[in-house]
């Protein structure tokens, strides 16, 4: 017997082993995010610019469309918070491409755990970070005349979590196929702004020309920005008519999509994209 050796026997694959794998992949994302405070700050800059510069600049133009006592900043606040989540979620998915370039992905892929555990861990990790980034934006609610109502804030955080998960799953799905960092960044940059602009974050979705109306309805972001705006508007101290004018809901050919269905659509898209990512990662040479 060799003196002092710690004997270890690695157990067979089990659900518990896979859960440990999910947990450590998730924790690694958090450790790396905590170490990268600069990213947390710089990711805030763009949403803040939209909220305060664009929001203030366009306020006088938008005044005619707003009910009395409601500022344009309040109107775009939910969309701008969603935007901060959008950027962070996509960037955290990019870490897979980064891991591939620096070899760490291989350390994960050769481990005796299922690939789904690794993909799920990544998606949950990215979702957590992106939600945290969204919460930082939510702290600025008062500056956009959005009340710090606990029920409102909890609702918004829940919706952000769902959005963050789906967007990370989208990013991970792309990262499973695109192996070069530059290509991934170019492609996501190309997609991020259209996703944001088509979500109705900056304008109401009613009375749009047909082509734009269709495009906005296929943007997954729309189905989170709508419910978020509904939550914000219903906590404003204005008449029900004004509330309905500000947040008419997402419509399909005149039919108002209920909020629960909106959120189910987003969750289903996230799960579908995560499944595609799992299948892609499970293929070997």
């Amino acid at each position, binding site marked *: *017997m060799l003196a002092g050796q710690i*004997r270890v026997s690695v157990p*067979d694959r089990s659900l*518990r082993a896979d859960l440990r*794998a999910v947990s*450590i992949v998730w924790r690694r994302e958090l450790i790396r995010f905590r170490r990268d405070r600069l990213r947390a700050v710089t990711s805030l800059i763009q949403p803040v610019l939209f909220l305060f510069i664009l929001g203030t600049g366009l306020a006088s133009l938008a005044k005619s469309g707003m009910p009395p006592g409601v500022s344009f900043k309040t109107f775009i606040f939910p969309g701008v918070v969603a935007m901060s989540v959008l950027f962070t979620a996509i960037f955290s998915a990019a870490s897979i491409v980064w891991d591939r370039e620096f070899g760490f992905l291989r350390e994960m892929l050769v481990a005796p755990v299922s690939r789904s555990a690794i993909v799920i861990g990544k998606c949950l990790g990215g979702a957590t970070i992106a939600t945290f980034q969204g919460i930082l934006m939510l702290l600025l609610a008062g500056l956009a005349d959005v009340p710090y109502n606990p029920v409102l804030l909890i609702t918004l955080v829940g919706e952000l979590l769902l959005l963050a998960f789906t967007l990370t799953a989208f990013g991970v799905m792309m990262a499973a196929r695109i192996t070069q960092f530059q290509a991934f960044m170019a492609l996501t940059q190309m997609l991020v702004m259209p996703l944001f602009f088509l979500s109705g974050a900056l304008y109401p979705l009613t009375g749009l020309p047909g082509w734009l109306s269709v495009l906005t309805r296929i943007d997954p972001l729309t189905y989170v920005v709508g419910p978020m705006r509904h939550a914000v508007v219903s906590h404003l101290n204005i008449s029900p008519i004004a509330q309905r004018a500000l947040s008419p809901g997402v419509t399909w050919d005149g039919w108002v999509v209920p909020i629960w269905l909106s959120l189910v659509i987003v969750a289903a898209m996230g799960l579908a994209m995560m499944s595609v990512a799992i299948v892609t990662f499970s293929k070997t040479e």
Partner: protein
Amino acid sequence: MGAGTRLGTDRRGRRQAVAADTGPDAGPGDTVVADRTEARPAIRVSELTKTYGEIEAVRGIDFEVRAGETFGFLGPNGAGKSTTIKILCTLAKPTSGNAWVAGRNVRTERDAVRRNIGLVFQDTTLDNYLTGAQNLRFHAELYGVPAAAVAPRMRQVLEMVDLWDRRDSLVMTYSGGMQRRLEIARGLLHAPHVLFLDEPTVGLDPQTRSSIWEYINDLKTREDITIFLTTHYMDEAEHCDRIAIIDHGKIVAIDTPEALKASVGKDRVQIHTENDAAAISELASAFGIEAGVHEGAVTFSVTSGEQFVPQLFARLTVPIAAVSVSRPSLDDVFMSYTGTTIRDAEATGNDAMRQMAARFRGRR
């Protein structure tokens, strides 16, 4: 899971240690050791082939590695070393043939193979933004090391490679040699039966290379483990108990370094002349010796080099600028089995297979 040794029985009825023991007086742990060092070979390879499209990277190889052995795969880049190691690690599927690692089939028992092997790749696979300890912790969780064993085992492997004091530094602050040591420690963390080292010292300076070898030799005395490594450095192959020489996807020789050198039996003579072609033809006509140009010098083998050199000066008309005589080395072994030196084999970079291999050495 508590500390101390407990024996459990897995689904296949094999006895195994469930948790950690920390000393030689652990009693039942001894049976575990006996279980490990049984006669079963650590690696068995049978008629293995691998083709990538048109290219045959591995063309039917057979060998066995005994438990506890340090076994080296020696050959130029593109000879099929990395492909073989990939198959043994279940990272690539064999085209035909079969292989067993720690008694598990690489085709059908992928997870079981992976749990029983440690891997150190040519390219680093560390997370530079985590500390050394965090990298190990990540590995321990992925490999399901029992929670109670994680901390003591981490300390043990980190102390083994002298990185315990640097465990809380970010990996990006480590030197190349330290990173390689950390990878070796990580490969050992889950106490694998077989440790695969793919070119463990490539890209390191000579001093760091020799220190890595000290760690590898040291770990043989501490861990109950079989080491399978690939290298294209001749001097490193000397550290192995046995080596297999692989060239163009086939094993051309397999034995201990001493036996391989003895099998060559001749000294190697290299001469620098003003006219190599004339010297080669004169060597053939005057002495009946077949010579060739290797590494820029006319090279040939004779039974006793020192006695031959005076005759050489007396009878060769081509002026000789310099001469060297060397005892058989693994270089000569390689040359006698493949007809070329390993450096020359590396230099001909236009080989299609070599390019293919280079591509597969890259990341997936």
